[in-house]
């Protein structure tokens, strides 16, 4: 039996490659200076969806929320085998905390479900920029779906129920959840397949309207706004005809109530950001000699650190 699956993904700055240059003097992070990547655990969630599609049939729709450049993770998803992708982009969604983000994503999943009921929502366990792991359970709650977090594998789907193995931190458990439900997948999940060369060729020109606008504006500086708009329309129509126009939804399209979105919809506020300041170099330098090392050990015994 085929399943209709939605995978929620995020484009994130590659926090593992952070350098001093990425930190501003005021302690905030200059996200623009870091390469933007597909959140690693979201790739495992996508892979799990693609494998389930291969086993049971169905469709895989990938949704992301972000600025126009977040389309890169959508193209990447298409290259790996996603059937449909959607960009949610809206300035009014900026500064959303996890609660507001989950509300917006839940509205998007509801909108995606208008075409065909959604059987399964998959997410990565957490994103490497925030590491909160909060958005998926909050989204599940808003959709009224059971959640299975820290999933490593799905054994079987049968009779409207899904069997999964999940990590409990203290070990593992096998659970059976009714469908529809939401899963969060860890990096112990199935290994993401590489993009297919054939699909790369097929989808490399896929663009969202926001990206087309950016490209046209850059190419036609000084042109009349009407001319720019006409060019955007022309390019969008040409892409749409070839099935390469990436759908783009605003908060209005997904019928989100603005009071729950963006800054207003976010109960948490950032009061202060500090870059991690190293403690002063106040350590006692010990020479790598027998006497000096013995002296240090003696001090540690004297002050009862070594008992």
């Amino acid at each position, binding site marked *: 039996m085929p399943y209709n699956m939605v995978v929620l993904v995020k484009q994130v700055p590659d*926090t*593992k490659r952070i350098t001093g240059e990425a*930190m501003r003097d005021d302690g*905030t*992070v200059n996200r623009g200076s870091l390469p933007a990547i597909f959140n690693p655990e979201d790739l495992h969630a996508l892979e799990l969806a693609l494998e389930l599609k291969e086993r049971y049939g169905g469709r895989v729709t990938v949704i992301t929320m972000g600025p126009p450049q977040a389309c890169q993770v959508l193209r990447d998803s298409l290259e790996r085998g996603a059937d449909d992708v959607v960009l949610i982009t809206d300035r009014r969604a900026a500064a959303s*905390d*996890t*609660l507001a983000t989950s509300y917006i994503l839940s509205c998007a999943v509801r909108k995606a479900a208008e075409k065909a009921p959604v059987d399964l929502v998959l997410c990565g366990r957490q994103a490497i*920029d*925030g*590491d*909160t*792991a*909060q*958005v998926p*359970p*909050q989204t599940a*709650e808003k959709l009224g779906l*059971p*959640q299975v*977090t*820290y999933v490593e594998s799905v054994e079987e789907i049968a009779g409207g129920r899904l*069997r999964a193995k999940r*990590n*409990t*931190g*203290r*070990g593992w*458990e*096998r*659970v*059976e*959840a009714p469908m529809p439900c939401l899963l969060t997948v860890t990096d112990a999940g199935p290994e993401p397949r590489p993009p297919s060369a054939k699909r790369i060729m097929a989808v490399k020109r896929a663009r969202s309207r926001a990206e087309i606008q950016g490209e046209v504006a850059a190419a036609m500086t000084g042109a009349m706004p009407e001319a720019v708009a006409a060019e955007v329309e022309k390019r969008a129509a040409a892409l749409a005809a070839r099935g390469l126009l990436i759908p783009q939804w605003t908060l209005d399209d997904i019928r989100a109530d603005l009071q729950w979105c963006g800054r207003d919809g*976010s*109960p*948490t*506020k*950032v*009061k*202060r*950001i500090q*870059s*991690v300041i*190293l*403690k002063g*170099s106040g*350590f*006692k*330098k010990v020479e*790598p000699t*027998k006497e000096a*090392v*013995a002296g*240090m*050990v*003696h001090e*540690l*015994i004297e002050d009862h*650190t*070594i008992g």
Partner: protein
Amino acid sequence: MTEPNRKGDVWVIAEQNDGQLHDVSLELLSKGRQLADTLGVRLAAVLLGAKVQEHAQRLVQHGADAVLAGEDKRLGHYQTNPFAKVVAGLVQKHRPQIVIFGATPVGRDLAPRVASAVRAGLTADCTDLDIGEHVEPHTNRKYERLLYQIRPAFGGNIIATIVNPERWPQMATVREGVMRMPEADAKRRGEVTRFAPDLAAGDFALKILEHHAAVRKVNLKAARIIVAGRAGVGGKENFRLVWDLANALGAAAGASRAAVDSGWIDKDHQVGQTGTTVRPALYIAIGISGAVQHRAGMSEAQKIVAINADPKAPIFSVAHYGIVGDLNRVVPMMIDAIKKRV
């Protein structure tokens, strides 16, 4: 929930797994006690399980003024929906001002579900909590006595302080091992309220088919002394030095993520942001350069000895004793000095 209840209690959501009370619940009570005393309100714990009486008493002995203890034989093993339903119901009924959970796999599964249900803000993986004032820059409004939720973010490269000015309760999950474990006081008295949660069969959406608890080979959190090494010390043979020094000191062996990833030592030994956060009396870092993710897990040790050939290694920034030198020479010198101590 939006209206702040300034007279509301401070709540700790205790965690019980198959009859065992999780250490983090007690750790949270020590911080919760401070917060409640600062605010002049009660500290209450919520405990759900198949049997609650004994652990409810322990929670009182470790600092709770009151325990809301929900008993149902189906709550012996955690699953999201029934736990979230009961906790969210209690929050809506009693309106605490602060609710804290352990940032364990269970807490990180449960807390966002509850926060979403009551439409409250939630901050993940806090390493510290405090009470203080806040001026919201967009409105210039001043708020008194808010919960500061302090957490590393951005891969540990920044520390953020988060507040929830208007929509309460203020909720946070707190990392294991970062708060002190309070001493038990057998004479402490508290009000334990036992209740039978209102749960229907339909609330138990999941069927737990099978569960296995892996036995932890090492409990780094409980170790007084930790000797930690990294993969770059030169080979599996050289990691031997870590074990030798640990044995000489009666210490636990710790490791950086790289050492764990390359399979030299089990994941249970990993110290740092994705491993265990430790605060031993003594931490000896052998060859560990001290990436921020590692330092986040050990910089609270009372004494830190760093041995590294690179004088610029960031580990020295948190060290109390620093030895720039070849670990293959320095570590045997230390072992020698320790063996000769008496």
